[in-house]
């Protein structure tokens, strides 16, 4: 019963929407009635377009996100562990982090043309800098005592990186990745509104251009649902036994 509790607000919202639509409370064309949206879902699923769009969007997010993590974590470790690197790089990281990823869209198109690459680039720009910052902050605050113990144990620099620093920052890294994947998902939709002709963002723009507000809602609903799914997926990582210490207090 408790598990169904989170669906209650959604059902109430749905009820209000349905009730107001049935009473013709919305001016024509402003809010699509629920049964139109349900039909829209039906046709989009049947044509296979909804699945294709979802896969396209997830594909771009996966590439942009993995690329960002792959490059940002090592850089974050370097900045976190080296005062010199921190002083040199942190201002630039903060500079780029402050620029909305959407502002890169013109460059993305000029540099990468159309299709997947510009969208992947935008996702990369949206997540890379914040993962660098989160990683460096985590690496800079690893307790000194861990390294003293490592010295006693005769660990090499390499051992300290892989057997002390990395495991010590994993809980904070999981939290950072969870935030970043959320941002990536928001951004992919924005990116798809410009340079591509597939994906959930494109579905929304295309539907708007055709004045199909029901399909706009189909796109929005799918985006929201997948957002929840991604968050649940990343939240699962916090249940791994060797990282529980970072979440249990």
């Amino acid at each position: 019963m408790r598990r169904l509790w989170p669906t209650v607000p959604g059902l109430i919202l749905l009820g209000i929407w349905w009730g107001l639509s049935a009473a013709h409370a919305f001016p024509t064309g402003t809010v699509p009635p629920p049964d139109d949206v349900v039909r829209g879902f039906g046709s989009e699923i049947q044509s296979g377009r909804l699945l294709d769009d979802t896969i396209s969007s997830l594909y771009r997010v996966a590439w942009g996100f993995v690329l960002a993590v792959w490059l940002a974590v090592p850089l974050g470790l370097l900045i976190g562990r080296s005062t010199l690197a921190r002083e040199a790089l942190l201002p630039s990281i903060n500079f780029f982090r402050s620029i909305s990823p959407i502002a890169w869209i013109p460059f993305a198109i000029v540099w990468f043309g159309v299709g997947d690459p510009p969208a992947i680039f935008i996702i990369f720009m949206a997540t890379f800098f914040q993962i660098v910052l989160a990683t460096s902050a985590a690496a800079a605050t690893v307790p000194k005592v861990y390294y003293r113990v490592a010295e006693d144990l005769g660990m090499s620099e390499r051992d300290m990186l892989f057997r002390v620093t990395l495991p010590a920052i994993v809980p904070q890294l999981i939290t950072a990745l969870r935030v970043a994947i959320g941002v990536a998902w928001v951004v992919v939709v924005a990116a798809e509104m410009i340079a591509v002709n597939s994906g959930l963002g494109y579905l929304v723009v295309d539907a708007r251009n055709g004045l199909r507000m029901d399909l706009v809602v189909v796109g929005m609903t799918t985006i929201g649902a997948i957002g929840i799914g991604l968050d649940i997926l990343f939240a699962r990582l916090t249940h791994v036994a060797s990282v529980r210490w970072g979440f249990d207090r």
Partner: protein
Amino acid sequence: MTMLALKNVGFDYGKVTVIDKLDLEVQKGELVCCVGPSGCGKSTLLALLGGHLQPTRGTLERKGASRTIYQDGGLYPWLTVRENIALGLPKGTSASTRKEKIDDWLAITTLRDFADHYPHQLSGGMRQRVELGRALAAETDILLLDEPFSALDYQTRTRMRRELAATLEARPRTVVFVTHDIEEAVQLGDRVVVLGARPSNVRRVLYLPPGRPRPPAAPGVAEAEQAIMDELGLS
């Protein structure tokens, strides 16, 4: 045999002189307790003895490797009790004796039932037993303890003193034990070194009769305690 020898050692943190003109020798198998007012550089002294810091002045000689046990939080939280202790084993321990040795240390520290627990799932006393197990598993001759029991409640602390004494009885080590607890110092130490306020050096040395831990009523204990209190200006 002299395991640790400090001659005229000084240490500065920037412009602050923490330790100055400190002389100390520790013999093999001896348990030396260092007491002193807070901020007098006790932890700095241990970091010097452990080779984590280098003296600014003077000479420090150390025979062999050492292990340090910290007040709290020295265990790796991402490793289980068993894995933490395994980390302490000397390098080159063969795979066949490894498991056996880990089981030995789990038994000595009475942690067998908690071998697969993570540190955050244990009580403070249990965590310190894991630290002790990991440090002793190394089979290094020198053991440095930095207020290892001060985060524990009184009863646990008293019990841990007894356990430490019993473990050292069975597996002798050369120990430097830093504490602010005067009672602890006179119960455990073969010798108690009283450090002065910063910049600190040895203010007074007290020798205690054999047998650890000494009950509070044992001969010489109360007198030593009083002498330390006098030296620290606490009486």
